[in-house]
């Protein structure tokens, strides 16, 4: 049987499935966890405790302090970049801009991009970059700060970022986007340079907003 003969029945099956009641998507909690034993109402209960995003404090393109309170109770997407990056950053920013545009008016979603080049990326330079990208700081914060704090935060998010004189632009970093839920737990990691993966990210954001 030729492969093309399968297309129609398979397509119909998909249609049938998608016509059914929508099944709630379960997004896993990612990252390190520990198993703890607690006594609840006299009974021993074993619970898995996932690491939550720890407190931080940075400055965004409008000189506002951006910290854990900024994302308190909100869903947020975060990444690491630098404005003079010649390789993957423009693509990451193009894709993050899709997320920004798709969730226009959604106050429960925050986008948070960290510069890993705090020496060159001053607040003024981030402001200029944000303006040229056409974004507002109330929904998309581009932050700079103490270099060690930024790098340790990247490590905390499990995102690779380091100074590398051999890399184009002087820094090597991952193009990952991280999705974090209202309880500050990491729920997804996506390739921020891939349109298809960012499509999935946008679906997952919808799920988390209604979780």
């Amino acid at each position, binding site marked *: 049987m030729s492969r093309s003969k399968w297309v129609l029945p398979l397509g119909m099956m998909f249609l049938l499935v998608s016509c059914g009641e929508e099944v709630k998507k379960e997004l896993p909690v990612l990252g390190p966890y520990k198993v703890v034993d607690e006594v609840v109402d006299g009974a021993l209960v074993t619970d898995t405790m996932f690491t939550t995003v720890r407190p931080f404090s940075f400055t965004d393109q409008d000189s506002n302090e951006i910290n854990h309170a900024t994302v308190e109770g909100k869903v947020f997407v975060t990444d690491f970049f630098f404005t003079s990056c*010649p390789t*993957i950053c*423009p693509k990451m*920013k*193009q894709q993050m801009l899709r997320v920004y545009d798709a969730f226009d008016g959604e106050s429960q979603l925050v986008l948070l991009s960290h510069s890993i080049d705090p020496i060159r990326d001053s607040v003024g330079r981030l402001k200029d970059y944000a*303006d*040229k*990208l*056409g974004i507002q700081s109330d929904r998309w914060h581009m932050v700079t700060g103490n270099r060690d704090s930024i790098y340790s935060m990247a490590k905390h998010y499990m995102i690779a970022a380091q100074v590398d004189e051999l890399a184009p632009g002087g820094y090597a970093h991952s193009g990952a986007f991280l999705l974090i839920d209202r309880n500050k737990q990491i729920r997804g990691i996506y390739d921020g340079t891939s349109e298809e993966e960012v499509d999935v990210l946008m679906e997952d954001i919808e799920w988390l907003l209604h979780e």
Partner: protein
Amino acid sequence: MSKTLGNLVLFTLLLAACDYKPRNQGKVLYERNCQSCHMESGQGLGRLLPPVANADYVLEHRAELACIIRHGISGPIQVNGVTYEGEMEGNRQLTDVEINNLVHFILVDLNKQKEHFVINEVRNQLEKCSSTR
């Protein structure tokens, strides 16, 4: 005998011709060298990175494209009425033929130009800018 040889040569040439698709190479070169900044359809990004598709700058500076690709360019430049201030590094690793194919792709595929770019045109351009830089 000579006829057989002649046919063989002709056949080989035809095979080679089938394999030679300058536009395809131009597209591949674009994806490898240009796409990360100028984006997959050449549309650029906001006021950060200029478009190379349907861009007045490309058509007005047609005679400089080869040199810009090889040696880079520093802003500010005006493209479709928008000022861009960034800097593009040169692509010195590309050969004359590769730059020709890239320029061909940019003009024909991204800017709907009908004329084919002639290899000599690119060579002449590159010779001019190699002496001035």
